[in-house]
């Protein structure tokens, strides 16, 4: 992931700026926070961590920060769940942080392996293989000959054709999020109306990337103070209210 710091971030050197290459992803950033603050991974103070996480990513270019913002949304959701009153039944209560802890521990394992691999790779990089070979062998040395049959080739063709003829399979194109576009849409709606609802800005036929784009747009705009997000009760439709009502026409 490459960092594209916005000009605004460069113009404000006093604020903390996350340089993305420093972190290989949101879990890396989260682990660093936990380590820096000497927190217990099994008992994460979510409110505090979420706040710091948001502070650290506040200057990322939005479209590049999609992965980070998804984590931010997850932290805020866990925070909200922790605030919900428990239904007295302590037995059946599951800590909403459990899944995050599991992912962090799993990711920490990956980091341990990475350290190991990095060390091995560096040692290996210190040594050169033989550059030239004596003659041009028919095969690269050490590569055994092939066992191939026409049947195999034809079944490969069949596989290719089968996949090629299922457009639903091939239509799965990784799509970049269009947060900027979603912000424009939401601003457009709010220019007309003081209040609106989640279901008004996200069509019922919206694709996942569109839903995620709008979600990130709303979070970002809320952070910028352009709007307020309200959810009257759990699972209710989210209401979106334009901030600074004084300006309302």
């Amino acid at each position, binding site marked *: 992931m490459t960092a594209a710091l916005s000009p605004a971030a460069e113009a404000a050197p006093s604020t903390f700026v996350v340089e993305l290459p420093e972190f290989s992803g949101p*879990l890396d950033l989260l682990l660093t926070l*936990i380590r820096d603050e000497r927190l217990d991974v099994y008992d994460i103070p979510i409110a505090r961590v979420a706040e710091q996480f948001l502070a650290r990513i506040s200057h990322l270019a939005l479209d590049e920060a999609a992965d980070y913002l*998804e984590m931010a949304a997850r932290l805020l959701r866990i925070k909200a769940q922790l605030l919900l009153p428990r239904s007295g039944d302590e037995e059946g209560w599951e800590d909403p942080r459990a899944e995050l802890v599991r992912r962090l521990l799993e990711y920490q394992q990956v980091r341990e392996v990475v350290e190991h691999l990095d060390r*091995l790779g560096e040692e290996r990089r210190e040594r050169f*293989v033989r550059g030239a070979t*004596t003659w041009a062998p028919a095969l690269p040395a*050490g590569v055994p000959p092939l066992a191939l049959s026409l049947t195999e080739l034809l079944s490969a063709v069949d596989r290719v054709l089968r996949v090629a003829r299922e457009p639903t399979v091939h239509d799965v194109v*990784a799509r970049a999020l269009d947060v900027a576009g979603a912000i424009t849409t939401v601003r457009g709606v709010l220019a007309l109306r003081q209040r609106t609802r989640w279901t008004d800005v996200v069509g019922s036929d919206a694709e996942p990337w569109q839903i995620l784009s709008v979600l990130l747009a709303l979070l970002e705009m809320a952070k910028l103070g352009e709007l307020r997000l309200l959810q009257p009760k759990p699972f209710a439709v989210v209401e979106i209210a334009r901030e600074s009502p004084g300006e309302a026409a």
Partner: protein
Amino acid sequence: MSPLAKLLEAALFASSRPVPMDELRTLDADATGEDVERELAALRAHYDDPEAGHAFELVEQGGGWQLLTRAEYTEAIERAQLAQRPQRLSAASLETLAIIAYRQPIGRAEIEEIRGVSVGGVLKALLERGLIDITGRSEGLGRPLLYGTTPSFLEQFALRHLEELPRADELAVALRANPTAL
């Protein structure tokens, strides 16, 4: 040096990749596996001899045996531009590679779930460097591609086989023993 040792040296010297034991054994139809192993050990000792030794050494890795220059000459060789070290892998690449090494065959979505970021570009770079390969398709929805590591991965990290990587439970234990050290 015995004739068999010389023959082995010739084959190892001619190859820029690890030469599998199978292939070393077929060099001389009269030699047993034990003979070959004994002569490989003799070659290794000869190269490592402090007096008559050589600037390269014999290592077992990547599913075979390979001659490699010793680390102490790397800087001078690179400065003289006679050979170049491969580029160091980024943290993102190493993380992805580590996950594939332990979970193979594994699909892209699963890797992204563990790393928390999208990995399309990283997978492409790892494929191009020959460190991973597509090993098949999952039976799941959309039949996503599955990735696995290649013999070249073992070679690039000086591993004899995948089992040389620390076991997952070893890591987990280390983790639980000292949770606050995170």
